[in-house]
């Protein structure tokens, strides 16, 4: 406006904050794409990786998980009343260890086994699928219970992988049906607001309406939630956290180490690779885990598809 001129009478158009907005606190998963994205990323990361055989197998497992989504697609989730009650009490509405599973989740397991057996498998992996097929519902439910409550015997580690994969499909499908607007972070911000599980890894976004925000991605139900960067996800310490990365690499994956609780969690920078997937890139970057473990830090929690003592 010139001096002495009249102010514009037009209505203001556009965003008053110029696009500077707060991030969505919780982002629910999209079960129609979640596992296919992981499968595609794993398949592209496998060639040339020292873990090529295993990553290719995990890519096939993720693809099988995607196909298993339709087996549990029609399961009704938690009722609105129980969801509201849990959120009011600041409890996860799909609490992994308290939720009463619909027995239909085993359909996802059947489908995953079917898809996996259709392709080439190491002899031991084939024996494990046969063993799971032969197991009765009670044995499978017991194994699921062991997995969710965190008490899997090391001799069960093979079958637990397929059970974990099927439970991921089941919980992801249910989480997608929760009311996103009502969900609130838990008092322990490092745990999933939907199911109370630990995250697989953090992904620092580079696109969307709030680039640069770290989302933690749930290892069980695939929900993403905001966690402030440069803050330990286990003990909330800010003073002693540092980023450890492999010297000279692209900086796609780093370990956020904390000297207050001596743990670390992985951070994946989408800026370095727009195709990064928090689940696939976690599995493909186990080299960092080995180096950081040797330097003395413990990982905040294992990836459920790689239970390690």
């Amino acid at each position, binding site marked *: 406006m010139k001096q002495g001129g009249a102010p514009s009478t037009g209505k203001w158009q556009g965003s008053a904050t110029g696009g500077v907005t707060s991030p969505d606190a919780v982002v629910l998963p999209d079960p129609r794409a979640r596992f296919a994205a992981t499968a595609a990323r794993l398949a592209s990361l496998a060639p040339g990786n*020292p873990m090529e055989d295993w990553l290719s197998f995990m890519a096939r497992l993720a693809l099988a998980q995607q196909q298993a989504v339709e087996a549990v697609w029609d399961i009704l989730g938690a009722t609105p009343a129980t969801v509201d009650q849990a959120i009011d009490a600041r409890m996860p509405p799909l609490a992994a260890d308290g939720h009463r599973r619909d027995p239909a989740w085993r359909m996802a397991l059947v489908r995953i086994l079917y898809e996996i057996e259709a392709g080439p498998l190491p002899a*031991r992996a084939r024996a494990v699928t046969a063993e799971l097929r032969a197991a009765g519902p009670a044995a499978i439910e017991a194994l699921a219970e062991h997995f969710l409550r965190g008490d899997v015997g090391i001799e069960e580690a093979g079958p637990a992988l397929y059970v974990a994969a099927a439970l991921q499909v089941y919980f992801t499908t249910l989480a997608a049906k929760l009311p996103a607007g009502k969900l609130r972070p838990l008092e322990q911000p490092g745990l999933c607001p939907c199911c109370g599980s630990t995250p697989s890894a953090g992904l620092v976004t580079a696109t969307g309406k709030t680039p640069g925000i770290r989302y933690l991605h749930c290892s069980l139900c695939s929900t993403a939630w905001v966690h402030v*960067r440069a803050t330990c996800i286990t003990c909330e310490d800010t003073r002693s956290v*540092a980023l450890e990365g492999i010297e000279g690499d692209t900086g796609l994956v780093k370990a956020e180490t904390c000297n207050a609780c001596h743990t670390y969690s992985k951070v994946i920078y989408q800026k370095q690779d727009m195709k990064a997937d928090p689940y696939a890139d976690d599995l493909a970057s186990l080299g960092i885990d080995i180096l950081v473990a040797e330097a003395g830090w413990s990982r905040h929690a*294992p990836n459920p598809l790689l239970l390690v003592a």
Partner: protein
Amino acid sequence: MNVNRRGFIKLTAAGLAASGMGALGFGHVGEALASSVRAFKLAAAKETRNTCTYCSVACGILIYSMGDRAKNAHSNIIHIEGDPDHPVNRGTLCPKGSALLDIVHAPTRLTAPRYRAAGAGEFKEVSWDFALDRIARLMKDDRDKNFIAKNKEGVTVNRWTSVGMLAASASSSETAFLTWKVARSLGMVVFDNQARV
């Protein structure tokens, strides 16, 4: 031995062989991975929150420095960006804020107090003791000369209007409180606690 999806773990080649990886016939993978990382080593970077030094908007910034501060290593600031978690700027920075790294490393940046004596043409570096003594002396002299204890009507006002003070924009509440107390207790009224743009 049991495994737990929620416990702290340390990944090792032996641990991977005993995990689900080994149970499914991929036991060799852990060994291959462990030998492939032998050639690499870790490099630490520190991420530190701070407030932009420039203006009263007080944007949050993240400062990245190389080297682990705990190990007596020389830290070097390598990158500065807007803090995406900060409610004021959500990761954005103005052009001045975006250039903060160059301020940090500017060769012309002041690292010690400098003094130009009246009539002299050049600044010369002096000690903090000299600078603080000199500032205190000049403030005292000026205050003794110009302090207004009472106004024309005889009401006590305790004003010192001939010297002003400009304090920082990136102060914490505590710093701002102390700055205010120091300035006001001297009777200083020309005082701003923000370096405006």
